[in-house]
């Protein structure tokens, strides 16, 4: 079960997550937020972690930064970054990694900056935490960073407070902050969800450019498959704490193996195709992480359930010729390819015969 699917990195992976479990003891019982997640991240690649709210994608990403530690949290498994273990690392060890090696951009640019501190100061503080730079040089770096993320008149704006910025501009400041110490990994947790589409396009463009310039790997946590198609190299689809499918961008979009992935892809509303009479929707709701069905977690919502589904399907490569494509579904591959193209209104992708008038 600890097969470790990952990118075909030649130089070895930058980050290796091995059978990570995260659970929280709550009044309603134990919430198993992350349940045996394993993946590898190669230098310079963009891995999109896709899932709905409550799938454990954010908890997984935050755990890598040690941001989910609390008295009621329990961790199992390992995460190695350049040989250093992150899950059990001490706060001091993590402090050296955070921002300098792995940096994070949070979803909400309105609440993730300090409202009573000038933005330049916030960037300088972070630079000086990791490097002994004199104030003047740190300021120069901050101005340069703000210019790089596309903030006009950066030299004046370093003295602004966050409230003087719009949402899009604040998210740029967050990106500048994240890039301030040249991290090797950038974790972006829903970086554009709170933004308007025209601004989203600008921010994605900026992340793409920065990645090309600095060679940083990106873990993009999102629920938006449009954003994923725009920017990702590889995709991990999470459902109820588990990765249910993982593969390259084209594998997931053009040869998806897990019924949940079909459902996700099928339920997207698109602007580039004729609109269907009825939107295909996945029936039912995701399970509560405190009370998950046994076996395959997607079983109660899956129209293709059969006896085998009561056992937990391992995340392995099942498609011939795609050794880097993994999924957790017991259905034989030929049946999947047959079943995923169904009539609209039922879980699945668009069927070929369903071209509407």
């Amino acid at each position: 079960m600890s097969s470790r699917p990952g990118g075909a990195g030649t130089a070895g992976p930058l980050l290796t997550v091995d059978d990570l479990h995260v659970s929280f003891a709550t009044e309603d019982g134990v919430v198993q937020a992350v349940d045996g997640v394993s993946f590898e991240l190669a230098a310079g690649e963009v891995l999109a972690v896709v899932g709905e709210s409550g799938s454990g994608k954010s908890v997984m990403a935050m755990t890598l930064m040690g941001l989910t530690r609390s008295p009621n949290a329990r961790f199992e498994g390992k995460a190695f970054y350049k040989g250093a273990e992150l899950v059990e690392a001490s706060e001091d060890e993590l402090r050296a990694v955070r921002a300098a090696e792995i940096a994070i951009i949070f979803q909400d640019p309105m609440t993730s900056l300090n409202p009573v501190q000038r933005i330049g100061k916030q960037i300088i503080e972070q630079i000086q935490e990791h490097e002994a730079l004199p104030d003047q040089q740190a300021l120069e770096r901050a101005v340069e960073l703000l210019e790089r993320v596309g903030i006009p008149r950066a030299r004046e704006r370093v003295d602004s407070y966050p409230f003087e910025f719009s949402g899009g501009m604040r998210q740029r400041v967050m990106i500048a902050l994240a890039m301030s110490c040249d991290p090797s990994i950038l974790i972006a947790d829903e970086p554009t969800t709170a933004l308007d589409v025209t601004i989203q396009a600008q921010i994605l463009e900026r992340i793409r450019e920065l990645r090309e310039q600095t060679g940083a790997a990106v873990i993009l946590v999102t629920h938006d498959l449009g954003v994923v198609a725009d920017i990702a190299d590889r995709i991990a689809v999470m459902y109820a704490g588990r990765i249910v499918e993982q593969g390259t961008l084209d594998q997931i979009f053009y040869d998806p193996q897990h019924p949940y992935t079909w459902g996700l892809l099928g339920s997207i509303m698109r602007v580039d195709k004729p609109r269907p009479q009825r939107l295909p929707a996945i029936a039912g709701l995701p399970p509560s992480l405190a009370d998950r069905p046994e076996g395959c977690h997607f079983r109660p919502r899956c129209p293709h359930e059969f006896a085998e589904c009561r056992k937990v399907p391992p995340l392995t490569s099942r498609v011939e010729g795609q050794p880097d494509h993994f999924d957790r579904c017991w259905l034989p591959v030929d049946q999947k390819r047959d079943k995923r193209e169904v009539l609209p209104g039922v879980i699945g992708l668009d069927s070929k015969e369903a071209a509407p008038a």
Partner: protein
Amino acid sequence: MSVEAAEQRGGPGAFSDGATPLVEVEHLKVFFPIRQGMVLEREVARVHAVNDVTLRIAEGETVGLVGESGCGKTTMSRAIMRLIDATDGTIRFRGQDVTDFGRKRMEPLRREMQMVFQDPFASLNPRKRVGQIIGMPLRLHGSGRTEVEPQVRDLLDKVGLHKEHVNRFPHEFSGGQRQRIGVARALALEPRLIVLDEPVSALDVSVQAQIINLLDDLQDDFKLTYLFVAHDLSVVRHVSDRIAVMYLGKLMELSPAEELYTKPIHPYTSALLSAIPIPDPEENRRRERLVVGGEPPNPINPPDGCVFHPRCPRATEICREVEPPLARYPNGHLAACHHPMSASAEEIKWATKDPSSPLSSGEELPVAAESGGGAKA
């Protein structure tokens, strides 16, 4: 039930049959004053939230109202609901001018217009049981406790929840289920108009589809009229008959739903469409995208001329000086642009100034690029 009445109502779409639209908004302006000073509170500036917009909604129709945050779409919908006072212009509901109606006079009309809010976590009282929440509008409009109960169960059933859910509290439900409760509450009084303010943007994709399908079914069952406010053009498309695009308080384009996607006339609409990433990697690589820079300007001091000109790739001298009127193209497609896209030279020649154009707009209609002849109205 209002089955007979419903049958008399016209189909969705045009107004060619001469029927009175359900909602008529004419040259609506909503400005918010910014005051300064301790005692006198002098008005120093105004936020131009809605700046001379005209829109009609036919009975049974769904109009999508889209735009980025701060474009005035929510203010507009609240003004139509008479939750915000209009600064200028008129709002008519079933032909009746309600612009200056007070609370008392609005009360009987409240039955006919209901609202579903964006945030299903904030719009339901956490201390009330589902039965009380859904029954409240009925109680407020005079039904007794015993009458209300069966109706509530019936409503729960209609929105796809279980009848046993009446005694639960909102926190026991997921976001999608809560939104169903919000829809049930809006349906309770059998309204004719429901204003949906970003009803699915707080929900996950798979649940969004469920709610959209539900709204679609309910519209058919109850012959409802929807004003669907959203920032997401892909969501609006699935429900709308016509779509209005707003920017900085102005109406940029008003189009039959499908035509907006295949033939956007205003560069702003086109920019919005191309900013939406397409969930298809190959298609995404293939298509050319028009990424507009910058951000919407401050609505306290909207730009002169066309409000979009500072960000528009097609802007010229005239755009900086003259506010474009809403030109009427075939199919009732309106757009306020001096340099229209996707319209043929013939269509541009055919275009006329629509009477719903803002009063401050100029007379200059767009000129077809190669035709040369400066046809001025």
